[in-house]
């Protein structure tokens, strides 16, 4: 604006004004795809689904406003709601810690490997590359009772393998193991975190005679804090969204032992075509995931702050 004040000829003023307007508009033009996408594919759907959750909303036919009735009957009258939620919580309670601890241990191994580390890194990441149907198909005959790889291995040591996917006590475990096979992404994130820790810290600690376990506890874990939090939160989110594997591997069975909350939502929407009820379920999931994420962030605030002091991560604030 102050440029125009001491601009000389009239033409120059006009040209600058135009350039100025362009400069104000340009950033919004660049980010407009995301803004439109946010409105049409995120904010719109979110508001829409919240509205739907207060309606009796079939795919075709009359919709009636029912207020909180969907939520009320879900919490009070629907045993499948509680059961599927409980299965999802059980899954998350086992999957999340295993995912992080095993990724962390693998990342540690790779971090200390000097020879062929690229090869091993690739091997562990490989299953993540072929997620989805192919991965599930592979697992479906690893677990197969008669010709499965797993039961063959067990037979080598003289164990008569169980029917993994047909036993209500084992099916959930089987799904957890299949899900953990894709931990390569988490492992990569933690590995890069390990690589970013300054070596001098360990050297100084070693010189001062700090034992290995203490270095792990007071250097590695705090320095890796933000990454661990990040993987913790993303693991929780993906645990609650667990659907494809169960849908293809067990279809929720046997005896509903792998009927996840996401499958409950899916069935209400696309099997019973009760969109309002399903939308209410998806909002329950949203609130749970959001609450858990916020709790994790709160709980971790102390040590992430500590990390922020050691290594500033806001170097890109001024662009």
């Amino acid at each position, binding site marked *: 604006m102050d440029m125009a004040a001491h601009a000389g000829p009239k033409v120059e003023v006009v040209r600058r004004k135009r350039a100025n307007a362009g400069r104000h508009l340009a950033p919004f033009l660049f*980010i407009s795809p*995301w803004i439109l996408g946010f409105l049409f594919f995120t904010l719109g759907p*979110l508001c829409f689904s919240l509205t739907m959750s207060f309606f009796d909303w079939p795919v075709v036919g009359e919709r009636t406003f029912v207020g909180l009735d969907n939520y009320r009957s879900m919490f009070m009258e629907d045993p499948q709601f509680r059961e599927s939620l409980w299965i999802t919580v059980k899954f998350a309670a086992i999957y999340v810690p295993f995912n992080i601890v095993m990724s962390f241990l693998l990342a540690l191994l790779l971090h200390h490997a000097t020879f062929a580390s690229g090869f091993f890194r690739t091997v562990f990441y490989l299953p993540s590359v*072929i997620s989805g149907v192919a991965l599930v198909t592979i697992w479906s005959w690893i677990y197969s009772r008669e010709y499965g790889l797993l039961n063959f291995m067990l037979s080598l040591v003289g164990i008569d393998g169980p029917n993994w996917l047909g036993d209500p006590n084992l099916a959930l475990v089987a799904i957890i193991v299949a899900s953990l096979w894709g931990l390569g992404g988490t492992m990569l994130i933690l590995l890069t975190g390990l690589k970013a820790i300054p070596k001098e810290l360990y050297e100084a600690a070693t010189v001062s005679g700090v034992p290995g376990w203490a270095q792990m506890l007071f250097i590695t874990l705090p320095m890796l804090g933000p990454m661990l939090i990040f993987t913790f939160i993303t693991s929780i989110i993906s645990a609650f969204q667990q659907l494809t594997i169960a849908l293809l591997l067990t279809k929720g069975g046997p005896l509903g032992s792998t009927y996840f909350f996401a499958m409950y939502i899916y069935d209400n929407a696309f099997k019973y075509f009760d969109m309002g009820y399903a939308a209410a379920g998806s909002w329950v999931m949203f609130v749970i995931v959001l609450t858990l994420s916020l709790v994790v962030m709160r709980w971790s605030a102390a040590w992430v702050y500590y990390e922020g002091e050691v290594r500033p991560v806001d170097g890109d604030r001024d662009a």
Partner: protein
Amino acid sequence: MRKTVLYAALILLSALFIAPFYWTFMTAVKSTAELYRFPPVLWPSAWHWENFAAAWNKQPFGTYLSNSLIVVVLSTIGQLLSSSLVAFGFARFRFPGRDALFVLLLATMMIPWDVKMIPLYMEFNMLGWINTLKPLIVPAYFADAFFVFLLRQYIMTIPMEIDEAARMDGANSFDIYWRIHLPLVLPALVLVGTFHFMNAWNDYLGPLIFLNDQSKYTLTLGLSMFKGLHEIDVTSIAAITVILCLPPLALFFLAQRYIMDGAVGSSVKG
């Protein structure tokens, strides 16, 4: 001694990660007789490559493949263009509300897909897009939060002086984006393209919800149908699984350097 234990552990774990792949491949090339032999045959006596063609012809996999390719190619182009445009906008301009909008963009990554799944279905239903490939393609033209974040981190590393010099020479913002930044962030674009390709190629829920006709199916749906219809036809399922794995694996090997470096780059800076 410590190193020996380390490598023993790595080799053992690698075997655990590779075994399922090996098993699948061997199942695909075995003869029916060897398939059901017990103890299982770990190395087939003859390689039945014709199993692949036989499996492929049991369903219209040619149609599925062309549907998959249409979705993957068109949506990857959209993702690369839109995400890089938005990333450039966030990285190179100061404008009112920029930081708040960027936080909002990051926050959208936390919304479970399930919450959007039902309203998106209704939305596409109203638009008449159900049972077309559009729901699988069009949203990719509106930028993905994770890719925007990744590309922005890369663009930030390009010195501002380059932009200023170009501006002196009369280049406008779009020229700077198109002719300077895009070539410079090519590694990051390869990374985004690869990740998106894999997601789109492996996607199962999207096609499952949005497509009805078999003629519109993608490969992942075709394979899952196989499972339902011919549960006993293990060889064919394995053969299609192997075929389905090949493009992502090939792409992964080609783009490996970028994927590994990219994970390093984005997380260290982020």
